[in-house]
Structures are given as C-alpha cells and as structure tokens.
C-alpha cells in the first residue's frame, strides 16, 4: 500500500496525525482530511458496492453528490449507514466500514449479480417472481413472498442499528435580514457587501471550511477568510447545509455539531435542525461537475476532474500517477496542468474538434476523441478510446485513473423548491434558475457563471438586489452573462457501446445504465416521471445529482426531442438527506409529547397511585395495597365508595369561566337542555351537540352569579369545547357580550363520593353548617372556605350514584386540600380511588362517557332524549332528528348482564342474536366492570331497538379476537339505585 500524499500540497494539518479504522484495519490521516481523502491517501480504492449489481465502487467525487463511496460509520447503537465518505470529516478513532457486501467490499459474494446483470434490466422484477418459474404458475401471494424475502435481503444499502439512537438533537430558530447560502467567491462577495451596509447577515456553508470551490485552489487560505468575515459582523455557520427553501424566504438547515468530534460532550446535541426566517436569501450554492456515460465508467479510480483537483490542493492527495482526463469543456485544463505539475502523467481526451489551449508539451491532448470503455475489474488498467467519427476503431491507453467532465450543472435545487422552473441553457448545456419573483437572488456558478471574476461580480449584483429589499439602493449593475469558457462546450452525455449488456452507468448507486433508459422507452415509459420510476434513475441517496441530466439527454435522444422539451425532473427537498433524529429534535422518548399533570400528581404518587395516560394527562388508575392487582384494587375501591367514602382526583376535567351579560344566552344556545332559569348557586348537567346533531360532549355548568358560569367539560373534549365557544362568539354570534377563559389550570378538583362524604366535607370546611342537605341540595353550588380559611368551591354532584360532592381549590393549594380530605376520610375507613373504580361506579349507574359517545351516537341513542328541549333552539336541534337518526330500530343505550353470573366479558364485544352470530350483530358492549354490589360482571352498550325489544331474550356476546363468547341478557342501564335515593340522601 502506497501513500499518495504530496508534500507541500493541501490545507491539512500535518502536525496532527489521526488514526482511524477502515474495515477492521488501522490507517492514518491528518486533521482536515475527509474520510475519502484519507482512504485515497492510503490507496484504499474499493470503498463501496453498488445497489443492484454489487459492483466495486470507489470515491467518485469530493462532495454531497457522491454516489460511490457510501460507507457505514460507527458501530453499535451509533451505527450510521450510508455516510458519504467525501463529506465525513476524519477524526481520531473514526471507525468506518464498507456496506452492502459480504464478507466485505473488496471481495463480495453479491458480485455474482454483476454476471447476471443481463437478466436484471430495468423493471425485471415487475415481470417475474409472481409465481413458480418459468411461467409464474400459482395463485395468491405465497410465492412472491418467498422471493420478496430474498430480494429484501439483497437490497438496501447499509445496516441500521436496532438500538435507540443514543444521541440528542435539537431544533433551533433564527431570524436575519439576509441569508447567504454558500461561501464560494460569489457568496463571500455578496455577504461582505451586505454586511458593509449594516444589515444582519447569516452565511451558511455546508463544509467545515469556507471557500467553496476556492478550496481546490493551491494558494487559497480558508482560515484567513473566516477571520475576515467574522470581523465584518457576518454570522458564519459552517458545517450547516441549507436543505430546503420554503415559503416566505424561510430555509431549513442542518448543522452537524459533533459529527467530526471523537468523543463529544453529552450536553451537546449531535445535530441541529435550523429554521431560519430571512427577509432575503442569496443562493450561492455553486455547481456540480457531471460524469460521462460509457462502458465501465464506474470502476474504482473513475472520478470527476474537479474532485481530483480538490484532493490534490485541499488534501494533498494525488489520486493517480497515470491519469486520463475525458472532457467536452474547458474546465479541465487548469486541473490537467496542476496534476501534471504534481507529478502525474496526464492525457486529455477532448471530444471537440478545435480547442485553443496553452498546454505543456508533456500533456497529451487527443482532440475529437471519446472514452469508449475502461479496462480492469477492481481497478483501472487502461482505457479504450476512439475518435468521435469512428467508434469501432479503438486504441488502448494504459492508465490508473480516468477523470471525467461532461460539463457542469448549477445547483438549482434550492430555488426549484420554490416552484421556480429551471430553464435549459443550450450554449452551456445546463439548467439555470428561472425568473424569481420572491426575495431570492441566485449568484455565481449556481446561476451558470463559470468565470471566478464574473462570479464575484454576480455576488455584488445579488447583494444589490438584497439591499433593494431594505430600501438601500446602490448603483445599478447587471449580472455577468452565463458561461465564460473561451471554447464552447459540446454535447457529450453518452458514448454508446456495442457491448451487451452495457455497463454505461447513468446513475451509479442504483446501477441504472443507458440501456435501461432505452428499454424503458421501448416499453412506453415516455414521460420523465415514468422513466424515473421504472428505472429508479435519480432515486438513490444522491437524488440524481450526478446522473439526472445524462438520463434526460438519453430520453430526449430517444424521443427525438430537446432536453427542455423532455422536461426537468422534480427537485424535492431535502437537498441532502436529513436524519430523522434531527427532524425530531428534543421531542423524543418521554418528551415525545409534553406530560400534563394535575396539581396533586405527586400527592397521588406518594399515596400509592398507579398512573395511566389519558390524553396528555397522567391520572391515577388505581391505588393498590400490597400485592393487589388492578382488579383487586378497583373492586375494593368501588366497594368502599359505596360503603363509606372515597376521594378521587378529577382535575383533568376541562373548566371554562363564562362571564358577561350574555353568559346565560350562550350557555342556553349550546346545551340541549334549558339553562335560562338556572338559579344562582345551582349547577346543571348538560349535553352539547355538533352542528350535525350528533353528541359532542357532556358536562356541567354552575351558575356562580347573575353573569357568571363555571363550565366543566370532559377531559378529552376540553380544548375542543374551548375553541368551539371562541369560534361561536367570534364568528357566528358576535353580538353576544361574553368572555370565555380556560380556567382548567387554575382549579384543582377532587370528588368525594359515598354515604360518608358529607361527614368528610364537614370536617374540612370552615363552617360545617353550610354543608347540609337543605343548604347544599343535589346540584347545589357553594363558594366557601376550608377550615384554615383557604377559599374553595363545593358542588354536590354525583357520577357514582352515591351522595357525592366535588371540591375545587386553586391549584397551588391542591396538596393541602388532599391532605385535609384524606385525613378526614381515613377516619371513616375511606379510600382513594382511581379511574378504574370511577369507571366501575359510573357503569353501574349507566352514565355515558367517551366510550359510548363515539361521534355517531345521538342524544336519544344515549337514552338522554329527555334532555333535548323542544321549547328552544340550540346547536344541533335542527339536525338531530334528520332521516334515520330518529328511526325506531336505532342502537340504544342498555345494560348487559351475563346469563351465567360467573362469566366475564369485555368492552368491544359484539352483541348477536343466538342463531345469527355474524356480521354487524345487533349491538355492542362499550364499557364493562365487575360490580361488587351485584356480585357479577355488568356492562353497558347499545342494542338495536333498545331494552324494550330484547327484554328477556338471550343474546350472544361475541368476542372472537379474545376467544370469548357468552350468553348475555339486556337490562336497564341504571343497574344500581335506579330511583337515585342515595344521591339525594
């Protein structure tokens, strides 16, 4: 193995030697190296395998367009597949390996595909694998799925870790006057000019070093540039890729914070996802050099010309000793000179007839010459060349590297994200950005300007455009013209081979060849999008950065059209792929959604609560004593509530303050039942309907004063009801003088339920005489004080059917209130109860909740038709009885008992007639519980025609997904104390 490093070249720090590991072998590079340059310097040529044919691939570029050197970095949970070696900065201890190969990229069994490639033409998998070969016998998907398993294993590129990503990521926002994307000569000129005019400039550069293509120049100093820019007040963001421009001059950008650091500090995120909102954007994103499609143009050692210049001048790596450059344009001549000066033998094949260039005699220049086929298997042994006029007459040149330049493509992706169609420039054979109507300017080679001086000039023009946005008007100058080569470029996209199957690659990673494109055309895939999808051209990780234009030119040739007639393909964000972790930021794990807790959350946990997620809330589920299961626990809690008293956190209910002279009118219009005559100091249970007459939510409203109500909603619908009231007041009923304010967070609430609840309350309040049956009757409301003087609100309300109250207190006092209540309740052998017991108690009473009100149920279905006033109009009153909504055979709320009282059942069970256990059945069970009082399981749910129809008829509860089936009977949903004696006690 030889080092290809050249003394006196490069911007690497030779003082700092970095050890790294490639495919389990130790190598050395320098600070400032990319993984690609370090591998090249160590003469590691095969670094990857292609997607389909598993052909050996080497480094083919020096940037984000790379589609050959895709590697895996790291191991274990930090394993990062499909990393471009060309953009991965080298660090000490970097551990990288080849991928999509077994056992390794140097020798890969998958390489056998290469020899079978004649069968694997575009779309071959649509034509076979359906059934038994050779004639696809069979039915169904069985045979395909056997093939699929094999295909899936062979496909894919790198292997992902299955362990959680250990790193953190974050989102970040910024704002600026002008955002400049790219720090090449044009971007720098623009940024400096604008900063000189006192505007706030952010400069984004995807590389670790500033300079863009200047980095390929021998004497360029990126460190000096950085100092200069910072001193002019420019906010410089290196290692940051602008991957998309969105509406309103907003960009999305990815900053790689620690990807180049050996052992990053835990406090630092690995990457940041920036959303930057600018007033003007200057795109100076540069251009990419294209390759040329010809036979074997993918062998390790084949590379773009500009890449080899970068490797020489930025990294001090001379990539070949005997180099053949194939071109159709002028951009390669400077590189040829420098490669020659650095010690390589250089031969140029120029497809043009006449080229005027001052070249050293030691460089062979073949005009009118095309590359025909590269010779070699895993490395380049030579190249067959031929004249443009005679493809059959070939000469062979011995060489170890082939550089290609088929022209340059401005990076129009970012502006294309804005829907701006690129236009084809035939003179320079490239797409350039179309006319832009937003505050976006494109400068430099991204606009198709090749000459450095003109690029700088264009930067100034872009700066002027940006400053116009801010009303700063400078002397008008106009953009230099597109292009800038002294000898015109001539089309050279593909050199047709007579060999079959052809290995003229258009899209390297996906192994799409020129023949594939022609086959797709023959089969009728004549729109660009069809072609793309059929061949997978441009759908690899590089998104066609290298191959798209060649593909288009081949398509145009087939159709006998010009490239612009064929169209451009879609440039979709992101420009370069963005890790899902970065998109997610800190919203991972337990922070996926914010946790909402009640003010007595910690109190509940301290008192043994097991919690359960309810929307964003965590609520107490049950309070197990030692060794108790969920069902032990809720049955005990339910029993104690019915026997003495229990206390439950009900804070999660939505709470809304309704204030103003029209408060009564509002409440009366949104509930189905009348509220107009509710006295002060009383509460009422109410149902709200949607516009279409279906039940939306239930809750209570308490009248606190002449013009003031306190409304509670269900936990689930709290936010929805709040927005709904605001919508009604701001858009439909704008004449009502009412303010609505969410006070869900202001008040903590506890239910105190059971025969002893009044005794418990009496011990806690300042004046026990207030809490009597007369003074605080059922649905009475009291604003009072606890015994230490803390104000509180008490309402007598019951969802358990027992004598029960709810007490509300300002949230910061919630712990104190619970201490008081609990201390008192313990004296009566009371308990704390959770959601499960709450559910059991309400099922016994036939109270409906979200499990029943599923958005299809009418107020009549729910057995609450009596609450629908016929004397007033309210939201939904018109629609609630339309058509079949008032039919007799609707599914109506009922209770269910198992016939065999030892039997249990589940919610979600379908109710069927005995001899017809299929289809939709005649009903369903929505909520179930064990009823300690009745001594067996009970349920509520719906049955077609209601209780009347099915009384005394045995039905079947079918629950096949849980392998259960039982006989059941229909009963009234009010299963305990149907007269409500206890509630009014």
């Amino acid at each position, binding site marked *: 193995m030889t080092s290809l490093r050249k003394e006196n070249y490069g911007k690497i720090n030779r003082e700092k030697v970095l050890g790294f590991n490639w495919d389990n072998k130790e190598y050395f590079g320098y600070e400032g190296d990319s993984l690609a340059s370090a591998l090249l310097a160590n003469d590691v040529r095969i670094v990857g395998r292609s997607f389909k044919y598993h052909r050996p691939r080497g480094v083919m570029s020096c940037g984000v367009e790379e589609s050959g050197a895709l590697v895996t970095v790291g191991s274990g949970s930090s394993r*990062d*597949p*499909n990393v471009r070696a060309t953009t991965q900065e080298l660090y000490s201890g970097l551990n990288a390996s080849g991928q999509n190969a077994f056992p390794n990229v140097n020798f890969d069994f998958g390489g056998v595909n290469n020899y079978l490639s004649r*069968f694997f033409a575009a779309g071959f998998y*649509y034509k*076979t694998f359906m*059934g038994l*070969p*050779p004639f*696809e016998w*069979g*039915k*169904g*998907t069985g045979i395909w*799925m056997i093939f*699929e398993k094999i295909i*899936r294993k062979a*496909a*894919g*590129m790198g*292997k*992902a870790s299955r362990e959680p*990503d250990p790193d953190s990521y974050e989102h970040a926002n910024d704002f600026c006057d002008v955002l400049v994307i790219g720090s090449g000569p044009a971007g720098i000129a623009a940024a400096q000019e604008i900063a000189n005019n006192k505007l706030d400039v952010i400069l984004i550069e995807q590389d670790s070093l500033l300079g863009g293509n200047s980095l390929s120049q021998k004497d360029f100093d990126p460190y000096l540039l950085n100092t200069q820019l910072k001193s002019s007040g420019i906010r410089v963001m290196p290692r940051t890729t602008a991957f*998309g421009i969105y509406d309103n001059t907003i960009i999305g950008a990815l900053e790689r914070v620690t990807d180049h650091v050996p052992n990053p500090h835990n406090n630092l995120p690995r990457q940041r996802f920036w959303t930057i909102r600018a007033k003007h954007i200057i795109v100076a994103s540069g251009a990419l050099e294209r390759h040329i499609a010809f036979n074997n143009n993918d062998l390790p050692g084949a590379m773009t010309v500009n890449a080899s210049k970068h490797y020489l001048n930025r990294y001090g790596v001379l990539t070949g000793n005997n180099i053949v450059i194939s071109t159709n344009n002028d951009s390669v001549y400077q590189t040829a000179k420098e490669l020659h000066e650095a010690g390589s033998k250089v031969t140029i094949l120029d497809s043009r007839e006449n080229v005027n260039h001052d070249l050293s005699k030691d460089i062979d220049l073949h005009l009118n010459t095309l590359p025909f086929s590269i010779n070699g298997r895993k490395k380049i042994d030579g190249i067959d060349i031929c004249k443009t006029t005679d493809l059959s007459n070939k000469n062979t040149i011995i060489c170890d590297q082939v550089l290609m330049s088929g022209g340059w493509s401005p990076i129009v992706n970012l502006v294309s994200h804005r829907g701006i169609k690129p236009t084809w420039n035939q003179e320079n054979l490239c797409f350039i950005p179309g006319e832009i109507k937003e505050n976006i300017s494109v400068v430099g080679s991204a606009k198709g300007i090749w000459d450095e001086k003109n690029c700088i000039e264009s930067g100034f023009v872009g700066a002027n455009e940006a400053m116009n946005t801010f009303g700063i008007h400078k002397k008008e100058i106009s953009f230099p013209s597109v292009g800038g080569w002294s000898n015109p470029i001539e089309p050279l996209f593909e050199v047709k081979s007579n060999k*079959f*199957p052809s290995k003229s690659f258009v899209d390297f990673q996906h192994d799409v060849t020129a*023949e594939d494109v022609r086959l797709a055309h023959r*089969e009728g*895939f004549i*729109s660009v999008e069809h072609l793309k999808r059929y061949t997978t051209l441009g*759908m690899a990780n590089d*998104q066609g950065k290298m191959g798209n234009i060649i593909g288009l030119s081949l398509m145009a040739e087939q159709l006998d059209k010009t490239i612009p007639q064929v169209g451009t393909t879609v440039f979709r*964000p992101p420009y370069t792929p*963005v*890790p*899902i972790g970065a*998109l997610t930021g800190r*919203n*991972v794990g*337990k922070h*996926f*959604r914010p946790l909402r807790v009640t003010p007595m959350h910690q109190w509940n946990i301290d008192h043994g609560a097991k919690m359960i997620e309810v*929307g964003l809330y965590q609520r107490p589920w049950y309070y197990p004593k030692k060794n108790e299961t969920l069902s032990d626990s809720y049955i005990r809690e339910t029993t104690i509530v019915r026997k003495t008293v229990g206390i439950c956190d009900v804070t999660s209910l939505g709470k809304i303050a309704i204030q103003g002279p029209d408060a009564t009118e509002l409440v009366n219009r949104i509930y189905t039942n009348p509220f107009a005559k509710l006295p002060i100091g009383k509460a009422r249970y109410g149902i709200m309907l*949607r516009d*279409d007459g279906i039940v*939306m939510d239930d809750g209570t409203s308490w009248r606190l004063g002449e013009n003031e109500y306190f409304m509670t909603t269900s936990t689930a619908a709290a936010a929805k009801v709040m927005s709904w009231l605001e919508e009604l007041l701001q858009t439909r009923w704008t004449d009502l003088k009412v303010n609505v304010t969410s006070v869900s967070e202001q008040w903590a609430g506890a239910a105190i339920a059971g025969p002893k609840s009044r005794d418990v309350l009496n011990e806690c309040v300042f004046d026990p005489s207030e809490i009597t049956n007369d003074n605080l009757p059922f649905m009475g409301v009291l604003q009072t004080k606890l015994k230490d003087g803390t104000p509180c609100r008490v309402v007598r309300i019951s969802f358990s059917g027992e004598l029960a109250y709810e007490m509300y207190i300002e949230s910061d006092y919630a712990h104190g209130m619970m201490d008081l209540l609990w201390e008192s309740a313990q004296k009566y052998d009371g308990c704390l109860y959770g959601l499960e017991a709450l559910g059991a108690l309400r099922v016994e009473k036939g109270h409906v909740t*979200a499990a029943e009100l599923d*958005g*299809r149920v009418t107020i009549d279905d729910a057995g609450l038709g009596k609450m629908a006033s016929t004397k007033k109009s309210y939201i939904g009153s018109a629609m609630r009885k*339309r058509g079949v909504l008032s039919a007799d055979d609707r599914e109506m709320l009922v209770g269910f008992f198992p016939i065999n009282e030892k039997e249990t059942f*589940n*919610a979600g069970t*379908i109710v*069927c007639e005995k001899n017809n*256990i299929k289809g*939709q059945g005649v009903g369903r069970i929505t909520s179930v519980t064990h009823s300690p009082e009745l001594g067996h399981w009970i349920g509520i749910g719906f049955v077609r025609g209601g209780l009347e129809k099915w009384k005394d008829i045995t039905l079947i509860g*079918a*629950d096949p*997904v*849980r392998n259960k089936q039982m006989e059941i009977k229909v009963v009234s949903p009010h299963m305990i104390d149907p007269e409500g004696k206890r509630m009014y006690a």
Partner: protein
Amino acid sequence: MTRFNAWNVFKNGFTGQKSWDRQWRDPVPKKEYDIIIVGGGLHGLATAYYLAKNHNKKNIAVLEKGWIGGGNAGRNTTIVRSNYMMPGNHEFYEHSLKLWEDLSHDLNYNVMFSQRAHVSLFHSPGARDGAARRYNIMRLHGTDAELWDLETLKKNIPHLNYEDARFPIMGAAVQRRAGNARHDSAVWGYARAADSLGVDILQNCEVTGVKRSQNNIESLETSRGTIKAKKVGFAVAGHTSVLWQMAGLGNLPIESHKLQAFVTESIKPLLDHVVVYGVGGAHFYISQSDKGSMVFGGDLDWYKSYAQRGNLPIVQDCAEAAMAIMPCLGRIRLLRHWAGVMDMSMDGSFFICKTPLSNLYLNAGWNYGGFKASPASGWYFADLIANEQPHKHVQNHNLERFEKGINIDERGAGPDPKLHG
C-alpha cells in the same frame, strides 16, 4: 403481447431485452366512446379494466390530464388492509383485499403485494377495546383479525420502544393478510391489462369543458379535442369538485386536503410489518419498501389545499412519531417527501354512485383510503356503470346519505373533513 414470466425474462437476457412490447399503446383519441372514464389514476384504470373484463364492454377510453399514475396513485404509502367496520365499508374493503391477493396473476404484472401484516398499536385499555370492536366485526364477517398482547408483539417486532415511550405500548390489533404493494406497478399493471383488452388510455388529455343537456353529458372538451361519450365516469380524486363544477352540478360534500408521505435512504431489512400508531394527537404509519426505504406518513396538513406539496411542521411531526415507536431510526435519513391531494368527504367514506345526470357516474371521496381501495373501487364502479344499479355493498355510498342521516363515519369525527385523516 409478450407475457411477463421468468422464461421471457431469461430469454430477453440473451437477446438484448429486445422483445418486450410497449406496455400500453398511445392511441389517437376517437371521436366517440361508449364509456369514458375521466382520471388515469388507479381507480380510473381499474374501472376501465373491469368494465372490459367483467362486463365485456368495448370502446372505452381513460382520459388522463398528465401521465397515468401521476396523482395519488404515485403519492401514497402503499398500505393495503380491510380493517373497516361500518356496514358496506367492511364488505367493500375486504373485497378489495381479495382482489389484491391475486392481482399479480390477474394482471400478469407483479404488483408485489406483500401480506406482511398490518399491526396497529394500542396504548390504553380503552384503545384496546375500541380496536376489539372493529376487529370483532371483521371476524364476524369472516375476515382475519387478531389482538396481540404485549408479549406476542415483542416477539414479532422486538425493536419498538418498549422502554421509555411517552405512551407505553400495550399490544396491537393485527390483520395478517394486510400489507403493502408496489404502487407504480399496480398502475402500470392495470394500464397494460386494460390496454390489452382494447381500452384507449389517452394521456395528456385534460378535460377542459363538459357539454351537457338538461339531464345528460353529451361530450367532453379536452386538450386533445372534443370527445363524445355515451356514459361518463369521474374518478379524479382530489379534483372532483373542479370537474363537478365544470359539469354545472354545484357543490359536493368534499373538500380537498393534502397528505404527505416520506421515504428514507435504503437500509437492510429493519421492519417486516406495517406498523400503525395513533396516540397523543399523532397519527402515524410506517413500513419498509422492498428496496429498503422506510416509508411513512401521518396526518393531513391541517388546511384545505390543491397543492401537491407538504409543509415543514408536519415533516417534523411525522419524524417525532417515527422516533416515538422506533428510536433506532434517529440516524436514518429522510430522502424525499411529497404530498397528494385527498378528496376528503364529510364522513370519511367514499362515493360510488349515480348523479343528477343520467349518464354521469361518480367515484370520489377516497379520503385516506384510496390506494387499498382501488381494485374494489374499479370493480364496483364498473358494476355500477354497466348495470346502472349500485351493488348492495355501496348502496349507501351516495350523495343523499347526509340528509338521510345514514352514518358510515368510521371515525365518528363529524362533518369536518380535516378530522377524517
């Protein structure tokens, strides 16, 4: 036409792939057709195919304003399932799934339907019971459906977030026969099969006007000239309202909303099922394509739109959901995302029905369900057009159901199209 099979693939390997035919012709529009289907997406192509195959109709054209499959057919996450429970909906989607099961053979085109199981996670006992209701109804219709407890789930998909998930995973509702398919090949397969039965597929043929009498459509103005038709079917999800207005028919119970889809870079097999997740306000589904990309999607983009483009906050939302169930995806990179325009109906269910015009038929309102529905959609729509009577499974899938109070709302979300995502 050269049949697609291993033998011909092998033969062509030696003959330079020269004997493959065009997969569908590029005919010149005739002056008149018996039946014109507007819309060259999966639904339109499938309708034409079944009209020709099941009903022996000749002289059919499919009009496509761009290139076939360029709308939602090519912009979805390719999930195929039949876990619907409302009357009619279930029968319809189950029929569709059955058609998918043999579609490759039927069309002689590998649509790569992979019955890898659709796994719908639940996170609370309430959600489990809600799923049980749906999956019980499936079972009572003879469709496969099961509930997996946590242990079974862990055994099948070991690398979900069972450790520190914000909403702990408790189990899953599973349909094993469900899975995903290759969307483009379904389009091309239907096109090729329809074409071989004589259907004219007219691309770049945009309907620009509708010429009608009081009760009838007489002809369609198109970018390729006037074309007369005896019967016309609309199957242009996302743009139904536009055509409807063009035909002078007023408003529809449909709003256009957009839905995004995402793919990552290719990786070696990581996920062998379709996994679905809906909790904490998120709605999310993910699977891995045969090529190795993770394919995922989430909620609608919140607001009405005809633009085939997504918005950034939803991209972030979907990424969050992806990480929430598969925290190993952190380093996997998003490669592309795109959006499709959905025909969101007021109850989340579709329309296959007659219209106020005697020779116009409507196929619309596919909401999220369009891709999986396409074989059955074509099948029942062809049936409707041929027999002029709706099949009993789609008898309520008409425009009158709202005034009649007939509820086939799978979600119970009410008349707000954006909530049916």
